[in-house]
């Protein structure tokens, strides 16, 4: 244990995702040895991000205004919505340049063992968006894992009666890897998911 403020900093850093106790200690001492100006810039951006960044009122992506830049962009198609778990997934899909519609960020996946059910995600908000007739296609781009699959099957089940075309992104195949080394489940999913879902 270190003295007061140093230990406080280590404790705070240790609560960040992906940072263990050793990592927290390393970062704390890095900051102690760093230039005051550098540390101040870091502190300022931490405060600024909480002050200025909000969730888009339409899609719940991160936004610096009421709406994110994608929802505010008039060139984006209004008829298609790509549903993702987290804001970082929006960036990943954007990088592919395959999608010209808009997004909906759920804020996670359904995970009963963690106590996360449909009501804990922004699913009601999605259904409200789908309720007006402009949207004709929904692409479900959840993570290619059990929780993501289950969330997609739940959404497909409730969207199907609305008569909206629904498909599941074929994803998870190792990029640049040998098919031979691709594990069977990932490969199976990619094949299976190549076609639109019926519901």
């Amino acid at each position: 244990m270190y003295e007061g403020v140093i230990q406080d900093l280590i404790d705070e850093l240790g609560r960040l995702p992906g940072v263990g106790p050793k990592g927290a200690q390393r970062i704390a001492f890095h900051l102690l040895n760093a230039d005051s100006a550098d540390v101040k810039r870091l502190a300022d951006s931490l405060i600024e991000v909480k002050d200025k960044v909000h969730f888009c009122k339409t899609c719940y992506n991160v936004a610096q205004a009421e709406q994110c830049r994608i929802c505010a962009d008039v060139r984006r198609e209004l008829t298609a919505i790509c549903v993702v778990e987290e804001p970082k997934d929006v960036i990943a899909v954007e990088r592919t340049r395959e999608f010209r519609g808009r997004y909906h960020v759920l804020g996670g996946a359904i995970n009963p063992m963690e106590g996360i059910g449909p009501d804990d995600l922004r699913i009601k908000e999605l259904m409200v968006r789908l309720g007006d007739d402009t949207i004709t296609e929904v692409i479900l781009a959840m993570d290619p894992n059990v929780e993501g699959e289950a969330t997609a099957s739940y959404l497909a089940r409730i969207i199907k009666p609305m008569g909206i075309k629904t498909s599941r992104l074929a994803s998870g195949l190792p990029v640049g890897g040998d098919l031979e080394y691709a594990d069977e489940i990932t490969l199976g999913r990619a094949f299976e998911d190549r076609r639109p879902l019926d519901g």
Partner: protein
Amino acid sequence: MLRTHKLGEADRIVTFLTHHFGQVRAVAKGVRKTNSRFGARVEPFAHVAVQFHQGRGNLDTVTQVITHDAFGGDISRDYGRYTTGSAMLEIAERLTNHEREPAVDQYMLLLGGLRALSKQEHASGLILDAYLLRSMAVAGWAMAFDDCAKCGVPGPHGAFALSAGGVVCPNCRPAGAANPAPQSLELIGALLSSDWAVADASDERTRREVAGLTAAFAQYHLESGLRSLRLVDRTEQVQEADTPPRGES
């Protein structure tokens, strides 16, 4: 495989229920990267052969994973099955929470339950309730459905008290005991003894009452509540009961 937790950038802490060593927690390194050798195999519901390496820390490292049954695929494809299976995993985790204490019966029960669920051998709700009743019985909480839970006087009895552990005779009956339908007690007996002919023939109302009783029974005995039980989606039950099971040869 019971549960996984994210650790650091790309690792996961994985909780296994093993055949010979009970519950084991281990670190699976790099499994969240898409090029991981066994990433997609390290997922809840999977029945795997796994090799551990004893590390310096208190957690072992997973060094090899071979899939026997990837139950997660069939289970996550249907929301009712997914929520049912999640409740089964949470119950198993709770009943085997003494790490490395052998729990062969619990292991076999869970494996059988997940297999039945992935192959849709019976309605999901019945599979869950059979699993719950039997795993609780193995753990020392057998629900009485015939003889009195308190004094053992032969049944059938009509009153049911959670605090007593099942049905009670008129003499032992505490205030506020419930009065489930005789068919519900019959279904509980069938589920406990794997009499699937009787269980499959039960009607929706009986199943609903038994689901309520078993859930209350588990919540009563397992100190802090099970998070997944309230999220079990039973809307599929009617459909499932009418649809012939698929994937059976």
